[in-house]
């Protein structure tokens, strides 16, 4: 609570700066560590990155957080949360697919990883591994998922690679 009054993770402590919320953290890192920029200089491409990040962190992820899912299970019935979550993911993924379809680059916005990829990768991973999302409806996102799963920075950030992940043994 002292680190993040919303009681959410993540939170970043950087000297005397304490920042909660993944969006605020990502943009802080972009300013503080300008090597390997995640946002392009071109205003339109920058806006598209931010729009995709926003769709994920405002339009999809909050609508499948555990508290809400438990609430829906309690109110509507056990197992009813899955269709709800799938509906939210479909809405958001359809919007993002429309924005990036036809993109010829290796990643969402081109041949370099940008902010949109940073937000898309975990969302697609969660959709596939936790919510049985049929990615054939979103061919561009499905292709990106394959790219992310082989990129070292994304691989190192996978949930089961973290120190607090349950051990498989």
């Amino acid at each position, binding site marked *: 609570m002292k680190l993040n009054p919303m009681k959410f993770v993540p939170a970043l402590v950087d000297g005397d700066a304490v920042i909660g919320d993944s969006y605020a953290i990502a943009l802080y890192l972009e300013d503080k560590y300008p090597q390997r920029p995640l946002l392009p200089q071109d205003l339109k491409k920058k806006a*598209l990155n931010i729009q995709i990040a926003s769709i994920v962190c405002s339009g999809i992820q909050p609508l499948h957080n555990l508290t809400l899912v438990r609430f829906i299970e309690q109110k509507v019935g056990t197992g009813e949360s899955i269709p709800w979550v799938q509906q939210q993911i479909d809405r958001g993924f359809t919007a993002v697919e429309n924005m990036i379809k036809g993109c010829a680059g290796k990643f969402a916005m081109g041949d370099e990883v940008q902010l949109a990829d940073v937000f898309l990768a975990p969302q697609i991973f969660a959709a596939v591994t936790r919510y049985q999302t049929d990615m054939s409806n979103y061919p561009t996102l499905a292709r990106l998922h394959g790219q992310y799963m082989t990129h070292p920075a994304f691989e190192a950030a996978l949930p089961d690679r973290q120190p607090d992940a349950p051990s498989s043994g």
Partner: protein
Amino acid sequence: MRKEEAAMSAATGKPILYSKWFSSCSHRVRIALNLKGVDFEYRATNPMTDPDYEKINPVKFVPALVDGDFVVSDSFAIILYMEDKYPQCPLLPRDLKKKALNLQIASIVCSSIQPLQSHAVIGSYLGTMDTNESLQMVQHYIDKGFRAIETLLEGCDSKYATGDEVQMADVFLAPQIHAGVTRFQIDMVCNVTLF
């Protein structure tokens, strides 16, 4: 996007804002445009009932800003785009910690409060939740978010949230507080700084 919209925006030099009057997301962008003194054209729309809106914005969300041949939707993306394009009346401070605080407050509003009170949450389950239950759910999320923001702003004695000038946090807070008070009966006694 329809060529007509792009041509009109390019010809007049005025961006076009697609907005719903009661949408707090649209409300944020209107505030930012007014603060920056941007002359824009207001177009009312409702994506749920307007079949032509998808041709303008395939993402089908409001608000959306048409600026020449470019369409950007999502209030966060629109406002950060405007921050770059219209640097007058900057909404983000240069100090990285204060900038991060503004972004964190904006993100709490647009990720942790507004989506959970939105029409989709209430409408989708209205058949299995009575009106009181859905109102309680909305109030729960507003209360949680507002208490968190109160904590972040503890001790602030400036005129606005993060300083004596209006900044991004204020642009996101004002519509959320307005909606909380006018639509969801939020008691602001618990949120002294925000009120």
